[in-house]
């Protein structure tokens, strides 16, 4: 005969397993694609070509395009004629997109423009938190749609208020609100002063930046 304690332990264990199973079920992700004009679907290949006001919803990410090729086997989406991606406080527009929903990765290229709206701790005259918009322009970018982190390559120009920065590459970590600029970094301040370095860190929620590297060149007007 099992003791009462053993029975209780087994009951708790079974409940825990059931709760974990329920949790894994609810954690299942979905991609929803809607279109207004046309859908061509080849079940054998898994290819779905959707056209006309295409909207892809994946978690908090919303992708808009005119034409999307989606593969249901590889869970990938491809856009060639202009795309807009909105996720939380980030909006990206680009000519092309390759999304991999299995691995939460989106690659955009061609006239890539990213707008990152940051809510600051400072408040405006009406008492509402101030907002800063960081605009990043590049030719190619990879975004992790799970973390909002991204990496831009092929020349990057960043504008924040009246500050401007240029670099070969940029990597952003959303959890730290930290954008690291690499290769030929040049930062131009509001007053027209310039800082040149091999590496610089810009905090999107702060006014400060840090320049790093063996050779840092600062030009300022006295």
């Amino acid at each position, binding site marked *: 005969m099992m003791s009462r304690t053993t029975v209780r332990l087994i009951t708790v264990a079974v409940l825990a397993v059931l709760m974990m199973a329920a949790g894994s079920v609810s954690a299942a992700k*979905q991609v*929803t694609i*809607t279109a207004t004009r*046309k*859908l061509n*679907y*080849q079940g054998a290949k898994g290819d779905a070509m959707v056209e006309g006001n295409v909207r892809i919803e994946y978690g908090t990410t919303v992708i808009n395009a005119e034409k999307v090729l*989606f593969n249901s086997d590889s869970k990938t989406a491809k856009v060639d004629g202009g795309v807009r991606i909105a996720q939380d406080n980030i909006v990206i527009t680009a000519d092309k997109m390759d999304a991999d929903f299995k691995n939460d990765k989106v690659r955009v290229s061609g006239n890539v423009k990213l707008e990152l709206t940051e809510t600051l701790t400072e408040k405006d005259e009406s008492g509402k938190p101030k907002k800063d918009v960081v605009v990043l322009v590049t030719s190619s970018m990879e975004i992790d749609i799970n973390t909002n982190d991204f990496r831009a390559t092929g020349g990057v120009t960043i504008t924040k208020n009246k500050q401007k920065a240029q670099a070969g590459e940029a990597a952003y970590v959303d959890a730290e609100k930290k954008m690291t600029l690499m290769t030929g970094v040049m930062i131009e301040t509001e007053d027209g002063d310039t800082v040149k370095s091999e590496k610089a860190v810009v905090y999107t929620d702060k006014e400060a930046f840090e320049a790093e590297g063996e050779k840092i060149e600062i030009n300022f007007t006295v």
Partner: protein
Amino acid sequence: MRLRTGLLIFLALALTTAALYYYGFVAPEPGSAETVPVAEKDAPEVLIRGLSMSSWADGEKVWEMEVERMELPRFGRNAVLYDITDGTIFRDRGPYLGFSAGMAKVDGRNRMEFSGGVVVDSEGKTLMAAESMSWDPATQKVTVPGEAKITADGGTVMAKNLTVDLNDEYIYTTGDIIAQQGDNIRITAGNMKYSVTRREMEIIGPSKIVIDL
């Protein structure tokens, strides 16, 4: 007792006994009265078992099928075919679609109304299943008036009604459709066009795809 009275009593008793015997032993139970056999009354004028049927136009075979039995009723011209198997619709001198059904009624213009588990297959695989289907060889139109299920490449499409124009390669559905590919993809849309040869679904108008990752 007078002789006449005795005879009357004897006759009454004899009739009563005879009546009791008839109703007790000879007459059938109520509700089991003997009637003319129904089967014989409704029997067809002609009954043919085990048929291979085929139709030809301009020297080309249009369709063929195996029929377990064919009945030609006494009244009216419509033939009834039962247990249809190995049906084939030909296109461009080759087999295009296969079919089978529980029964079919054929009218004077050779239009066929199939029913009883209609199955249409393509390249040996089930393509379409429906409870009933009509086929007009003159117009080459196949129509499923009720709900139809299209199966292809691990996917299914449920449609409210369906038309196949055998002159082209498409199955047309009208009304809302729900397509399911495997366990994780669902497509909902309005009208659909399905290419039998390319195995491709085309939807004109709004559509929604939901994919479980």
